[in-house]
């Protein structure tokens, strides 16, 4: 960036001089303005600004989505009690049929939950999600959830946010790199508004969509989440999704009770995930013409479940989570509700009805948690936790076990409850559920669904646990690769010849290292400088050092200039820990097992 040039005024001030001066100051002002604008609208800063707008628009869209779901429920299922059995069965069935027609004819991208589509936008389509998908998702999900299909609004909100963000990115002509990142930014905004939990939304997107902590996108994700949550609270109030009762843990040994909940939750997660993955394949293998009837079939079955005494399984079911938290059901009924909700959600999801799995997961977790808590309390009365505490922990357990997002699961419970005193039970139970679920169902549900869709997106779980190689894994001990202090050219050449080396490291004073190769030494010897100290004939500066904990790929750029790079301790730059060459790096990579497809 050029500085602003300022000329001193001349002693003879003429009209021309004044004009010139005015022109110059005008130019200077323009330059300053330009500098300011450039700085303001540099793409990275503009991206941050855009993230706020993404949050605002996503928030507005999600608020409308919530209204639409409620209005659909009121007009399809009625506003209150006394629904006739015919309507209870036919409403979800006929709406399912209508939704299927809409999806098949107009919005094929609206199928499923939306999380994988957002990941696909990030990894395959350079951030591109058609606006039609968002419109389709909005309409079809509102109808399906409003008509009582056992699905939730969060994943569709996530996709609506991502789609809006993608549209904004295209409209503002962002670079390809930014376009790729914009879908997760919108996804976080959509999820934050749907959940009224911005921290959980940020964590979920980092954990499940992006896969790693990246400073470049974190700021945007946070800004968009906060903006959308603010918009949502503006219109719908700042209350959490559920009224969380006072939660507490009276004694540390109650952790045993929560551990049991973790185990039960882990097993339930596996049943839920296997049910979805198996039945989805079965449903897909049915003749194509049946696909339009599948949501209707699922809707009718859910209607029957409601008709026979469990209307709680219809829709997202937040109000019943609230009731479970406040001990409104017996533990036996809670267990039945958890089981029926698993069945209803599997049916709704595998039939291709658009809608999300977050709310059903929370529902199942809350019912299961309160049920396990109630059963424990009736069998072993000294376990004193309230149903609300168990329901809350249960929600986290299913999140960890089924969706396989352990970090989000912990923070979601804390954010929703606003109570950090249950962090220990949550961590214990979630970890157990996660471990059990991983053990019994190695592939997470989102990855299974992706593969069934014929895509190969990176597994976030694998990414999180990918072992990265470090310099220390490939480096060799220095041994004979270092010239002794004061060695002459002849001695150095002899050392290289004896050891069959191509280059050696030369220590510099007061510290630092450089290298010299055999060819250079031979030339110097031919020129008759064999008795001269190597350090006095060196014409290259010190080599930048590596440290043992550096990632191995950090060494690669060095090999363009140096064959041998010193690896020094962080405790002292003179303390040589080892050396590394291109061959060492290649050997290390060759030793890794190659993943078979």
């Amino acid at each position, binding site marked *: 960036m050029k500085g602003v040039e300022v000329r001193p005024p001349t002693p003879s001030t003429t009209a021309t001089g004044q004009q010139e001066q005015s022109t110059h100051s005008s130019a200077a002002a*323009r*330059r300053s*303005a*330009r500098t300011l*604008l*450039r700085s*303001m*609208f540099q793409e990275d800063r*503009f991206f941050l*600004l*855009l993230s706020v*707008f993404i949050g*605002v*628009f996503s928030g*507005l869209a999600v*608020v*409308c989505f919530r*209204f639409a779901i*409620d*209005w659909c429920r*009121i007009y399809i299922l009625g*506003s*209150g*009690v006394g629904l006739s059995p015919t309507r209870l069965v036919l409403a979800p069935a006929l709406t399912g049929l209508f939704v299927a027609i809409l999806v098949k004819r107009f919005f094929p991208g609206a199928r499923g939950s939306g999380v994988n589509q957002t990941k696909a936008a990030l990894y395959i389509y350079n951030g591109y999600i058609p606006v039609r998908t968002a419109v389709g998702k909005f309409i079809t999900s509102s109808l399906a959830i409003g008509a009582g299909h056992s699905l939730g609004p969060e994943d569709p909100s996530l996709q609506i946010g991502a789609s809006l963000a993608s549209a*904004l990115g295209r*409209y*503002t002509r962002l670079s390809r790199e930014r376009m790729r990142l914009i879908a997760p930014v919108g996804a976080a905004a959509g999820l934050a508004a749907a959940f009224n939990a911005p921290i959980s939304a940020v964590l979920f997107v980092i954990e499940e969509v992006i896969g790693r902590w990246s400073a470049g996108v974190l700021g945007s994700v946070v800004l968009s989440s906060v903006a959308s949550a603010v918009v949502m609270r503006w*219109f*719908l109030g700042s*209350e959490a999704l559920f*009224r969380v*009762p*006072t939660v507490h843990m009276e004694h540390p040994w109650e952790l045993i009770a929560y551990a049991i909940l973790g185990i039960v939750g882990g097993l339930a997660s596996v049943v839920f995930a296997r049910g979805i993955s198996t039945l989805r394949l079965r449903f897909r293998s049915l003749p194509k013409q049946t696909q339009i009837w599948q949501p209707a079939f699922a809707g009718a079955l859910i209607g029957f479940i409601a008709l026979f005494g469990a209307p709680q399984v219809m829709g997202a079911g937040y*109000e019943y989570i*609230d009731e479970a938290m*406040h*001990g*409104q059901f017996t533990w036996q009924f809670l267990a039945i509700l958890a089981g029926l909700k698993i069945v209803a959600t599997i049916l709704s999801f595998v039939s291709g009805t658009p809608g999300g799995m977050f709310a059903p997961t929370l529902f199942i977790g809350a019912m299961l948690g309160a049920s396990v808590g109630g059963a424990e309390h009736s069998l072993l009365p000294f376990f004193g936790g309230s149903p609300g505490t168990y329901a809350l922990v249960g929600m986290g357990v299913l999140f960890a076990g089924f969706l396989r997002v352990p970090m989000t699961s912990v923070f979601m419970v804390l954010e929703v409850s606003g109570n950090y005193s249950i962090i220990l039970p949550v961590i214990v139970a979630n970890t157990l559920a996660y471990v059990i679920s991983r053990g019994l169902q190695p592939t997470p549900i989102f990855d299974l669904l992706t593969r069934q869709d014929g895509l190969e997106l990176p597994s976030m779980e694998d990414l999180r646990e990918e072992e990265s190689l470090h310099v220390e894994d490939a480096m060799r001990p220095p041994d004979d690769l270092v010239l002794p202090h004061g060695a002459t050219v002849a001695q150095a050449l002899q050392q290289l010849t004896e050891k069959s080396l191509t280059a050696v490291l030369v220590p510099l004073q007061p510290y630092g290292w450089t290298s010299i190769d055999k060819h250079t030494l031979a030339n110097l010897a031919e020129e008759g400088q064999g008795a001269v100290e190597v350090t006095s004939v060196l014409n290259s500066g010190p080599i930048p050092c590596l440290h043992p904990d550096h990632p191995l790929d950090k060494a690669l750029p060095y090999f363009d200039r140096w064959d041998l790079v010193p690896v020094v301790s962080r405790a002292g730059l003179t303390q040589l820990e080892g050396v590394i060459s291109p061959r060492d790096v290649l050997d290390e990579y060759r030793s890794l097992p190659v993943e078979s497809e």
Partner: protein
Amino acid sequence: MAELTENLDFRRYFTREPVIVALLCVGAAVGFAAVGALSSMYHTQQQSLAVYWFNKGNADLAQHRFERAAQEFHVALLYSRDSYDFRLNLAEALVGLGRIDEASTYFNNLWERQPENGLVNLELARIAARNKNIEQALRYYHNAIYGVWPPEKETMRRQTRLELIDYLLGINAKRQAQSELIALAATLGNEPAQRLRLGDLFLRVQDYQDALSAYRAALRADPGNAAALAGAGQASFELARYSQAARYLRAALAQSPENTSLAALLKTAELVLQMDPFRRGVSLAERNRIVIRAFQTAGDRLQTCMPATGLTQPTAAERNLPDTWEKIKPRITDRGLRRDPSLVETAMDLVFDIERQTSVTCGAPAGTDMALLLIAKLHEGS
């Protein structure tokens, strides 16, 4: 050339991104306005649905159709989930349905939000009382009494104390009930009905003096109040003011002659008055006649009671009542009593002993025996 490039560059920066931002701002403003309008529609609809279902629930609750009321309150809560009143009424409907555990959870949650709410504390007290949790019940009853009530329900505070007194009497905590009654008396007005209720409660806790005061206060406002007259008569009777009791009871019976228990009480009071030889203003002849009759009555009672009990085998400390009665009997004549006036006391002591003893061994007496027993109590220690 450089200047031209700079100008183009400047124009680009000055036209593209700021315009985009400006457009986004306009878009956001329009979006806010549109969603604001939708939101207003949405909230109005939700509110009206909430009120509609709440009113339906209230109507059903008033007619004790608890099942429907509970469902309707549930629905109302869907549309206004934080409404305190909706939750409260739902909890009351659940109580009506006998789903006490569920109701209890609702009340506990409501209590957490407003621990000072009188109605919630009252309901929690009732639940605790039902669960036989005396300590908790008393705590919630007191919270309710000293809690916050809406102005139109201020009388509930008094009702709650009355309910607490009933509860305390039910668990036989008469001393605590009496304390509550004294506190209640201070808050009551002079309405006859309230004073009457107070008198009844004092009577139940056996605080006869306060009961009499309460009945008298009721009678001052309504002198012909039959219930107050009966209560005053009963209280006076228990205070052993038999002539006063007879006066009140007669007046009460004049208004409700069919009341047999009052008639029996009056009869006993009159008998006490008739059979007391030590009352003031009794002539010698009359006194002797009373003593002779009392002696005979006691002898009859002894005769009736003797075969069924071990009265013939007294302990060392006791005197043999039948033998003593037989021994004295020949002397208990009008002439004998005139000749030896000290026989009056001897005879009456024996009569009192017989009545006391037989009341223990043969159960509560009736009629003249009862009167004699009461006279015995009246003159105890004199």
